[in-house]
């Protein structure tokens, strides 16, 4: 279990607990935090990156979760976890409002304002979240879409095939309100890893290839955003480096021979400590 499952999930997956999506959590303090987060996103990102530059290079050699005061502090403010498609679907099943919105990381890193990779989810109706927040800024609110559960599931399936990593995010622990779809070059959370910081946990899973099934086509290698899959010309098969795998499940989705399965990270002694 990642530390959020222990702290906010009573030892089960914290992001499958409806209490972490409850309207009661959306108090005045959180509302202020969320408004500020989007209003001052660029400023906070630039300040954060500048602060990371001041850290000692030796401390940054291996990107580890919570390695520095910055990533550690984000565990309280804005932190996430990678989740595979089936867990996204479980969350969508208990939410009552799904809003597809513009992605603030892509606007900052690529200047695009129509890439709607973020899904705001809620288990309640509210004028504040997400509608009220986004409507304050016309740049952001253009083109936001309200989706049904079925529509959202279809969109997530497409995103999965296109190599987008799904992750849940909280806004002041443990209030979860967004499921993101990220790629290494486009997401600030990923980009922080280049500076030895990581503001999200790996998934509760890890992928493994059944070499009896694998024909060495390498489709899985192409889609893995974490560079965790290697092809061996000697065996003409692929294997997944377990310490590098984030458990996103994207490789499984593209394997035509169904040779890839997700295992429970917690059942593998060394990986159970690898977040």
């Amino acid at each position: 279990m990642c530390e959020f499952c222990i702290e906010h999930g009573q030892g089960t997956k914290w992001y499958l607990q409806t209490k972490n999506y409850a309207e009661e959590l959306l108090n005045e303090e959180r509302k202020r935090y969320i408004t500020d987060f989007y209003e001052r996103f660029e400023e906070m990102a630039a300040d954060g990156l500048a602060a990371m530059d001041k850290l000692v290079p030796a401390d940054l050699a291996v990107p580890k979760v919570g390695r520095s005061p910055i990533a550690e502090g984000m565990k309280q403010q804005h932190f996430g976890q990678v989740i595979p498609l089936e867990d996204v679907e479980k969350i969508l099943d208990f939410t009552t409002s799904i809003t597809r919105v513009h992605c603030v990381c892509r606007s900052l890193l690529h200047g695009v304002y129509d890439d709607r990779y973020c899904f705001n989810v809620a288990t309640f109706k509210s004028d504040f979240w997400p509608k009220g927040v986004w409507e304050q800024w016309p740049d952001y609110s253009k083109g936001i879409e309200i989706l049904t559960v079925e529509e959202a599931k279809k969109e997530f399936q497409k995103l999965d095939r296109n190599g987008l990593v799904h992750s849940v995010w909280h806004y002041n622990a443990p209030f979860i309100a967004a499921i993101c779809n990220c790629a290494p070059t486009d997401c600030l959370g990923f980009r922080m890893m280049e500076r030895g910081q990581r503001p999200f946990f790996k998934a509760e899973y890890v992928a493994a290839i059944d070499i009896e099934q694998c024909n060495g086509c390498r489709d899985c290698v192409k889609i893995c955003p974490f560079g965790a899959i290697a092809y061996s010309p000697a065996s003409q098969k692929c294997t997944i480096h377990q310490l590098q795998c984030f458990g996103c499940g994207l490789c499984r989705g593209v394997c035509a021979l169904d040779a890839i399965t997700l295992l429970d990270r917690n059942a593998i002694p060394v990986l159970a400590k690898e977040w």
Partner: protein
Amino acid sequence: MMQIEWDDKKCTSPRDCRKCLDACPEGVFMIYPRDGRKPGKVAGDWAIMPVFLTQCTACKICEEICPQNALTVSVES
């Protein structure tokens, strides 16, 4: 660390161009509304800022691709 100068007189519409953002192999740049984001208003006056400067290799791909010659990369001695 490298230094990158961005000339706002030459780069007049970064939101439409975006070439440096997409071309830099190290993803050094970000784009942001210089006067912040005001409720009810479309943000104007966009600026390019090199933020991942520690990762800049001084390859000058950005300098070469910039149609306005607005970027100058220099290697700090």
